[in-house]
Every structure is written in C-alpha cells, then in structure tokens.
C-alpha cells in the first residue's frame, strides 16, 4: 500500500521531524507505531494521509508517486485514506450527524454537501455508523456535549462513513480512559480484519501494541529504531527506544514491560 523511500520532513527549514525514513506497508497489514513523544509519529501520519508533503524522498501510495497528486486527483486519493486523530478533530458546534457525514465530503458533489447541511441526506448511513460504534442515540446531539470517549467514537463513525482502504489512527486512545481504550483499539482492529483494511496505529501504550498487532515499528528521533514482528521485539529494543526520554509515562511503560505477567494480572481487560 505504502512504499516510503528516504523520506525527510523538515519544518521551517530548521526542525527535523522525520529523517531518511524507509518503510513498506502491505495491503491489509496491521502495524503499530510506538516511540517516545516527539519521535515524529504524528508528522509521519500527516505525510501518509497526504495532508503535508515530505521535504524530500518519495512516497508511493498504491504504486503512485504522491508528488504527482494535486487538485481533484489529490482529493480522490485522500478519500481512500481515513484518519483518526488524538484530539478527535470534530467540529464541536455541529450535530453528531453532520460530523459523521463529513466523512462523505470527499465523494459528494458540493451541492449534495450543502443540501445535507440543511437536512441530512444520508441520516440512515450516519445512524448505521453510530450503531456500529455503540452510540446510535447521539445522532442529533451537539458534538461538544459528548464525552471524550464518545467523541472518539464519532470520529470512528466518520471513518466508517468515509469507508477508506487505509486507516491511520494517530494515538486514538491517549485521551480516553484506559478501560475504554482497549475497546476502541479492538473496534478498529475488527474493522480492519472484517473489511481487510490496512491499519496503522500510533500507540502510547506498548501493551496494547503487543496485544493486538502482529508488526511493531519503533520510531525514535524521526527515524526507525526497529521494525519487527511483535514476537521478535525484546525488552532491549524497547529500552533502546525509550532511553533518554524522561517523561514519567514512558518510564512506566518500560517498567510495565519489565514485568509483563504482573501487569497483565492487574489489568485483565488487556489479555485476550
């Protein structure tokens, strides 16, 4: 699906976010990206969903060079990639139904989008999507009145309405409480399994990554630290990934990896 070759992203010609990154992601693959904050995960995702261009290097999506996309062609390609953001990125003042249906904006003609804003044209589609994520009763509520976890579900419903081939989930659960987090990750996994969609997920929680993903990529300082099957990732790999980063959360992650059996027994919802 994706072939990245020597990708660099430099902001303001000073800050290097991603450096000389090579990556290959096959169709239908499920991959988790882990790494300390500031490793360039979000920047990488913004390049993968074609909202920002790489400074240098080539990014092939489905065999097509991303540099050749522009205008209508670019929008058509973007439609095939769905993104879930850490901060939901919904429009707070709109009703849930409009936020869900905004997933269709890539395929609707403009008049259809205007019409739907006045009276939702595919409310049944929105309802179906919301039912899938378990909040069908919120269809006409104002989005900002929903809790963080519910808003993330609305964002997933928007993804369902968009029906993309690739799902990019950028820390989808870091603003959700841990009990719900596993549920949301599971939902996205099921989605990619049943419809054979490629799934890439940034995760803060190393445990969730191990529990659900066959392939793990460690990202550090804008470049790949390891890219291995989950079973081959060792504590040394993780220690190398997080060494030098001092946030407490990360140290906790390292600790939790050191004694997995203990952690698992305390958090039964993480075990499958």
């Amino acid at each position: 699906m994706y072939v990245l070759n020597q990708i660099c992203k430099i902001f303001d010609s000073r800050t290097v976010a991603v450096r000389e990154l090579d990556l290959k992601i096959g169709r239908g693959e499920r991959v988790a990206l882990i790494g300390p904050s500031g490793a360039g995960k979000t920047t990488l995702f913004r390049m993968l969903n074609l909202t920002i261009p790489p400074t240098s290097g080539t990014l092939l999506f489905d065999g097509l060079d991303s540099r050749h996309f522009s205008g209508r062609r670019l929008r058509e390609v973007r439609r095939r990639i769905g993104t879930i953001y850490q901060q939901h990125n919904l429009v707070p003042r709109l009703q849930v139904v409009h936020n869900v249906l905004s997933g269709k904006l890539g395929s609707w003609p403009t008049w259809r989008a205007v019409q739907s804003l006045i009276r939702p044209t595919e409310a049944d589609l929105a309802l179906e999507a919301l039912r899938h994520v378990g909040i069908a009763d919120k269809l006409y509520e104002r989005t900002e009145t929903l809790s963080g976890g519910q808003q993330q579900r609305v964002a997933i419903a928007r993804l369902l309405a968009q029906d993309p081939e690739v799902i990019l989930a950028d820390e989808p659960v870091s603003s959700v409480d841990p009990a719900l987090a596993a549920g949301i990750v599971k939902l996205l996994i099921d989605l990619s399994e049943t419809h054979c969609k490629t799934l890439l997920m940034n995760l803060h929680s190393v445990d969730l990554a191990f529990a659900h993903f066959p392939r793990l990529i460690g990202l550090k300082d804008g470049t790949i630290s390891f890219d291995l099957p989950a079973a081959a990732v060792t504590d040394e790999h993780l220690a190398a990934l997080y060494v030098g980063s001092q946030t407490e959360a990360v140290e906790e992650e390292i600790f939790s990896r050191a004694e997995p059996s203990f952690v698992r027994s305390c958090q039964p919802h993480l075990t499958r």
Partner: protein
Amino acid sequence: MQNRHSSAPVSLTLPARRHSNFQIVWSVLFILTFLGSYRLAQVKPLLLLEPEGRRNIWRFVTGMFPPDLSWDFVSLLGRPIIETIQLSLMGTFMAVVIGFPLGLLATRSLTFTGILNEREMVDSRRSVFLLRKGTYLLVRAILSLFRTIPEFVWAFMFVRAVGLGPFPGVLAIGISYAGMLGKVYSEILEHVNPGPLESLQATGASRLTILLYGLLPQALPNLVSYTLYRWECAIRASTILGFVGAGGIGQQLEISMRMFNFNQVLTLVAILFVMVAGVDVLSAKVRRTILSRSSV
C-alpha cells in the same frame, strides 16, 4: 520576572527574556509620540472650567430641559426614525454582501498559507502561488481603502453622485463597513481551530466544503456577533450621515442644533439612545439563539 512556582528548580525556570534593540527603539519612539501628541493636540482640561466654558456648557445643558415633546415636533420624527433604521439595516446588509467574499479572499489560511494550502504550495507552479498571494494583498489593500475613508466622506461623495436622501447613506455605510467587516471576518476565520479543518481535508473534502463544514460552523458565533455590533454602530453612524444630507434622524438633529433648539436635541438623543439600546438587546437575543442552535 517573578517565579511563581518557587519550588521548581532553577534549571526549569524560563530564562529571562532580553529585550531586543528593536523593541527598545520602538518603545522610546512610542513614548515620544505620545508626549508630542499631548502637546500638539492642545489637551487643556482646565479650559472646561474657565468662566466662559462653564457658561456655555450651562447654557447648552439648561437649554435641553425640558425636552421638546410637543406633538408638532414629535410627529415630524416618525419618518426619520424609520429611515434611520432602514438605512442602517440596508447599509449593514450591503457591507456583509461586499465584505464577506472579500474577507474570505483576505484570509491567509484560505488563500495561500496554512494547512489547507501546504501541499498546493509545494506542488503547484510558482505562478499559481504568486497569483494567490497577489489576490490576497490586493483584497487587503481594497479593504483598507474602504476603511480609511470615513463614512461621512463616502456619504459626501455619494450625495454628489446620486443626490440627497437615504440611498447615499446606504452606500456610504455599505462601503466603509465592508472594509471593517472584511478585515475582522478574515481575522476571525484565521483564528479558527485548524485541527477539524485538517481532518476534513484528509477525507478528501474540497476547499469549499471545508469552509462549509469546518470553518463557518466554528466561526459563526463570532461572525454574527461582530456583524450585529456593526449594525449598532451603523445606527450611530447614520446620524452623522444625516449631517451631510443622507437623510434619517441625523438630518433632523442637524437642523435642531443649527437652530439652537437644544430641547429638541435632547429628544432626538434620547430616541437615538433607545434605538441603539434596542439593537443591543436584539443582538444579544440573536446571539443566544445562534449559540444554542446545534446545526450550523
């Protein structure tokens, strides 16, 4: 700079910010300008307290009482009052019609920078980029031109062009307020949270639909609020416009002032006050309604 978190180790506190030479030079210039203005504008508050000043103020104030509420005078006012409301309403409407599209074009994040344009900037040809930036600069220049010329000067010109009456007043308010609305609209739109816009863009939405689904819903309360405030200003401004013959209650005010009928002036000022307060109440209501409505 005082450190509020006294428990934090020294190494974690921000380094004290040094003032650059640029800042110092501009601060000194500003202070000098301020002092110079005080002298040059001949600010002499004591003048108000001198015998002659006091006498004039006294005559003016006592002349206002009692306000002229005779039927002969009040019956004259119905038409100018309605004319003033219509003038301000049509003027503001025209300002929105002209100002909104210009405001969109003057919004940097829509025309040539920001996340909505990041990819285009790199991919499209340089000429396209320059064209967009050129449009942006041109529109901003037009908006400042509209604003720079005061509304009564516009009215003065339009009275020459289309004759006496409310219409030149409508044109004057329409043009000068379009300049203000356009500028403030663009500022409001630029300060909208870009996150939802980026997520819409990532679904393949076009710029127009991003505007409709992401930008306007977020900005609407501020846009409406500011427009209503401008309507309130337009009622006040239409008074001044009356002075140059653009109709409305201002024309009546000018006649009364010139005839030294200060008691009529008080009546007119009271009416103006009620009108402005009325618009204020109305706009507060509209704002509340907009804020509580969920769709768009």
